[in-house]
C-alpha cells in the first residue's frame, strides 16, 4: 500500500536489524506458533478475570442495579467512568492507522496492527458498560430507532442517543479498517499454517494472492478508509464528552470538553499501546521491529497530548475562578480540596506532572521508564474520568443534595474484569493474527532485487 517512508542510502533504515523479507515472515509468524508458559499463565489470569466480571454482573442481574453504589446524587459512577476510559483507549488505533498514515509518519508501521486490534477490543469492552449501567440489558434494543409497535422512539436530542450512533459507527469503521489491513498478512500466515488453522486463514484471507491488481485495490481502499476514519477520531470522543458537557452540572458544562476529551483519549490510547507492546516485544522477541525510535515517537505524541490535557485542566480551573459564579468556583474548589481530593491529585500528578519527564530524551529512550510512565498515565486517565463524572455530581447546586459515592464490590469486580476481558481478546489476537504488520514492514525494507543490483554496481 502507499506509504511514504523516506529511506535513503545513508543507513536511515527504520529497522536496521531486519535484513530480508523472509526474516519478517519468520519472526512475526513465529508468534503464531505454539504458545509458551507465559502466554498460558496470562490467558488463565484473563479468563479468571472475565469470570469475575460475569459473576459480578450476574449478581447485579439477579439482585438488581441496587447492588451497585450508584444512587442519588451520583447516578453515574464506576460504570460510566470505565466506559469513557475504554472508549478513550480505543482512540489511538485509528489515530495511528488513519491520521498518522495521512501525515506520512513512517514510524506507525510497527505498532499500527497492535494499536488497531487494541481499538477494536477496547470498543468491545466499552460497549459492555452502557449495557451493565442500564441495569436491564435485555431492553437495550430500545436505544435503536426503528418503527415499532410500542411507538417508542429514542429522544434524538439526547446526547446518549448520539453516543449510540457515534460508538457503533466508530466500531464498524475501525473493525473494517483493522480487518482490511490484516488480509495480506493472514494470507502470509495461511501459507505457513496447517490443518484447521489453515482452513480458518483460507476463509478469512478472502483468497488473497498478492497480485498487482489486488494490491492496487487494497491501496485505494486503505487510503479511502483512512480519510473516512480521520473525522471519526475526533467525533467519537467529542460525542462522549457531550454526554457531560450538555448538562449544566458545574464541572461538566464546559465548551472545551470536546477537543479536551479527544486529546485525553489519544493520550491514554498511546499510553496503552506502550503498556501492551513493551511486554509483547519482550515475550516474542520483537526488539528488531519495535525499536527505541518507535517508542521515542510515541512518547513525543504522549507528551504533546499531555500538554493539551494540562492546558485544559488549567483553563478549567482558571475559568471556574474567572466566571465569578459561586457554584463554579465552589465546585472546582471541592475538586481540589473536597472529599475526593485524592482522585483529583492523582489525575493531576499522573497526567500533568509525570509526563513532564518525557521532555528528556534519555527517558524517551528508556523502555522500562516508558512502561512505568505509561502505567501512571493509564491510572491517571481513569481517575480523570472519575473526577469529571463522579466528583462533579457529588457536589452540585443544592447543599441538601450533596453526597459521597463509594463504589461497591460488584462495581469493582466489573471494573477489574473489564481489564481481563480486554486482555483476554488481545491475547487471543496475538495468537491468531500477526500482531505486527508483515506487508507494511516489508515496504520499508530494502527490496531484495534492488539490494542485489546495488552490490553488482558497487
Amino acid at each position, binding site marked *: 500500500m502507499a506509504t511514504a517512508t523516506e529511506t535513503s542510502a545513508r543507513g536511515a533504515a527504520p529497522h536496521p536489524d531486519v535484513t530480508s523479507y523472509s526474516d519478517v515472515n519468520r519472526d512475526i509468524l513465529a508468534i503464531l506458533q505454539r504458545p509458551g508458559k507465559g502466554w498460558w499463565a496470562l490467558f488463565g489470569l484473563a479468563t479468571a478475570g472475565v469470570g469475575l466480571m460475569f459473576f459480578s454482573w450476574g449478581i447485579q442481574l439477579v439482585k438488581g442495579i441496587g447492588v451497585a453504589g450508584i444512587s442519588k446524587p451520583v447516578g453515574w459512577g464506576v460504570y460510566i467512568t470505565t466506559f469513557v476510559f475504554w472508549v478513550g483507549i480505543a482512540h489511538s488505533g485509528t489515530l495511528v492507522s488513519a491520521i498518522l498514515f495521512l501525515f506520512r509518519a513512517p514510524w506507525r508501521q510497527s505498532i499500527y496492527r497492535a494499536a488497531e486490534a487494541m481499538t477494536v477490543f477496547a470498543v468491545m469492552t466499552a460497549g459492555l458498560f452502557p449495557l451493565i449501567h442500564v441495569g436491564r440489558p435485555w431492553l437495550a434494543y430500545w436505544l435503536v430507532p426503528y418503527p415499532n409497535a410500542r411507538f417508542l422512539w429514542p429522544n434524538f436530542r439526547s446526547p446518549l442517543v448520539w453516543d449510540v450512533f457515534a460508538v457503533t459507527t466508530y466500531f464498524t469503521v475501525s473493525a473494517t479498517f483493522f480487518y482490511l489491513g490484516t488480509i495480506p498478512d493472514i494470507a502470509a500466515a495461511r501459507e505457513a499454517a496447517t490443518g484447521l488453522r489453515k482452513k480458518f486463514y483460507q476463509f478469512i484471507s478472502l483468497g488473497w494472492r498478492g497480485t498487482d491488481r489486488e494490491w492496487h485495490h487494497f491501496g485505494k481502499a486503505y487510503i479511502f478508509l483512512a480519510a473516512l476514519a480521520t473525522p471519526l477520531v475526533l467525533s467519537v470522543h467529542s460525542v462522549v464528552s457531550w454526554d457531560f458537557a450538555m448538562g*449544566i452540572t458545574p464541572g461538566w458544562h464546559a465548551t472545551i470538553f470536546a477537543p479536551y476529551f479527544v486529546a485525553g483519549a489519544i493520550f491514554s490510547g498511546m499510553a496503552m499501546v506502550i503498556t501492551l507492546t513493551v511486554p509483547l516485544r519482550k515475550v516474542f522477541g520483537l526488539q528488531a521491529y519495535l*525499536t527505541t525510535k518507535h517508542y521515542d515517537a510515541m512518547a513525543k505524541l504522549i507528551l504533546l497530548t499531555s500538554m493539551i490535557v494540562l492546558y485544559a485542566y488549567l*483553563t478549567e480551573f482558571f475559568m471556574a475562578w474567572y466566571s465569578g459564579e459561586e457554584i463554579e468556583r465552589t465546585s472546582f474548589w471541592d475538586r481540589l480540596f473536597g472529599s475526593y481530593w485524592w482522585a483529583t491529585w492523582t489525575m493531576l500528578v499522573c497526567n500533568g506532572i509525570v509526563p513532564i519527564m518525557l521532555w528528556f530524551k534519555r527517558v524517551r529512550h528508556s523502555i522500562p521508564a516508558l512502561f512505568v510512565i505509561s502505567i501512571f498515565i493509564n491510572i491517571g486517565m481513569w481517575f480523570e474520568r472519575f473526577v469529571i463524572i463522579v466528583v462533579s455530581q457529588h457536589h452540585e447546586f443544592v447543599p441538601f443534595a450533596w453526597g459521597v459515592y463509594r463504589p461497591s464490590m460488584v462495581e469493582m469486580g466489573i471494573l477489574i474484569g473489564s481489564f481481563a476481558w480486554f486482555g483476554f481478546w488481545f491475547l487471543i489476537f496475538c495468537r491468531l493474527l500477526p500482531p505486527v504488520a508483515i506487508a507494511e514492514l516489508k515496504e520499508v525494507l530494502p527490496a531484495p532485487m534492488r539490494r542485489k543490483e546495488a552490490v553488482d554496481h558497487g
Partner: protein
Amino acid sequence: MSSIHIPEDIPVRYLERSKRGDLLVAALVVVGLGSFVAALIVDSHMAWISWVSNWLFFTSVAMGAVVFAAATTIVKARWNWSTKRVSAAFAAYLPFAFLTLLPMLSLGGSYFPWVAEMAHDPILQSKQAYLNLPFLVARNVVGAAALFGVALYFAYLVVRPDLKAMSTASGDHPGRARWRDRLGVGWIGQEEEEVRSWHRLQVISPVLVLVYAVVMSMFAIDWAMSLEPHWFSTLFGGWFFMGAFWAGIAVTAVSISRLIPLHPDFRTSMGLQQRHDLGKLAFGFTVFWTYLFWSQYIVIWYGKLPWEQAWMIRRADAPWGNMSALTIFLCFVVPFAGLLGKRAKLNPGTLSLFCSVILVGLWLERWMLVAPSLHHDGDSVFPLWYPLIACLFAGLMLASVRWFLATFPVIQVWQPPEPIEMLEPERATSLTPR
C-alpha cells in the same frame, strides 16, 4: 505518495525589490494611517474597535505562520523544505505587532466595559484580581514581548546558517550585507552553524509552541472575551489560537502562489508536492476550525444558560446575524467545497483564491469576536473604517515580509539532511546482517 526529494544545491534567490511593490506598501500605509486619524476624529469608538480587531487578525496571521514553521520543525517535516522560510518570514511583522499593541494599552475605560461596571457589579468585583488595568497592561507587555521575542529568535536561528551562502551569491546590496554582518557575529563555520542551529531549533520550537498557546489565549481573553465580562468559555483561547495557526497555513499558501510566477526556481521548488500538502492542511483546518466552533456553539446552545448564551444570541440575532452567517460561509462552506478536490490544491491560482477566502473569513471572525460585544444602537455592523484601517496593518505586514524575503533567501539554502534520530549509534552499529 513518494519520498521527498530535496536538491543538493539550492539556489540563493531573493525577492526582487520593485517600485510597484514599494508604492503599494506606501499607499496602504498612508490610506490606513489617514483613515485611522480621520476615524479618531469622526468616531473614536469605532476607530479603536477596528484597530484592535485588525491587530488581533494580523498578529494571528504572523504568529500562526511562524508557529506553523516551528511545528513542521518539531515533527521534522521534509515536504515543506522550500516553503518554510516563507512561513518564518512573517516573524518580520512582529516588531510592528508590538508597536501597534502599545497604543491599545492606553485605552482603559474607553475600550473595556468592565472598567466602568466594576463599581456596581459584585461578580466583576470578585474577579478584580484579573480584570484590572495595571495587571492587564503588565501581562500584555510581558506576554507579547516573550512571544514575539521567542518567535524572532526562532527566525534568527532559521536564517543564520544561510548567511555564508548569501555572501557568496551574486547580487549583494548594502542593506543585505549590513544584516548579514550584524546577524553573523561569531560565525563558527558552515557545518557547525547548521548543526548548532538545528539543535537549538529542536529546543526553541516546542518552547515557542507552548508560549504561543498561553499568550494567544491571554490575548483572546483580554481583548475579546472580557468585553462581555460575565461571559466565559473554556474553549475560547484554543479556538482563537488554532484559527491563527490555520491563518498561518493559508497565508503561506497565498504567499507561495504569489512567488511562483516570479522566478523559475520558485516554480520548480514550490511544486506539486508543496502545494498539495499546503492545500490539504488548509482544507483539514477548515474542518477543524468548524469543529471547534461547533464544539463551543452546541454546548452553549444546549445548556441554555442566560449568561452564557447572551454572547451567542447577540451574534445570531439582528443586526449581527448576517455577518455571522457570512463568516461561517467564508470560513467553512467556501474553502470546504473549494479545496475538497485535488486539482484545486495543485493549481496555484485556485489554492491562492480559496486560501484568500479563508483569510478574509478569519479577518471577519476576529471582527465578530470584538465588535458585537461593544455595539451601541445605531452602529454599523461593518463600518468602512474596518477595511480602511486594515490597510495600515496589511501595508506593514507586506512591507516587513517583503523586506525579509528580499534580505534573506526565499528558499532556505541549508537543510537538515536527515532526521537526526536516524543517525544515532543504534542505527550505525547494527547494519550488519544477523
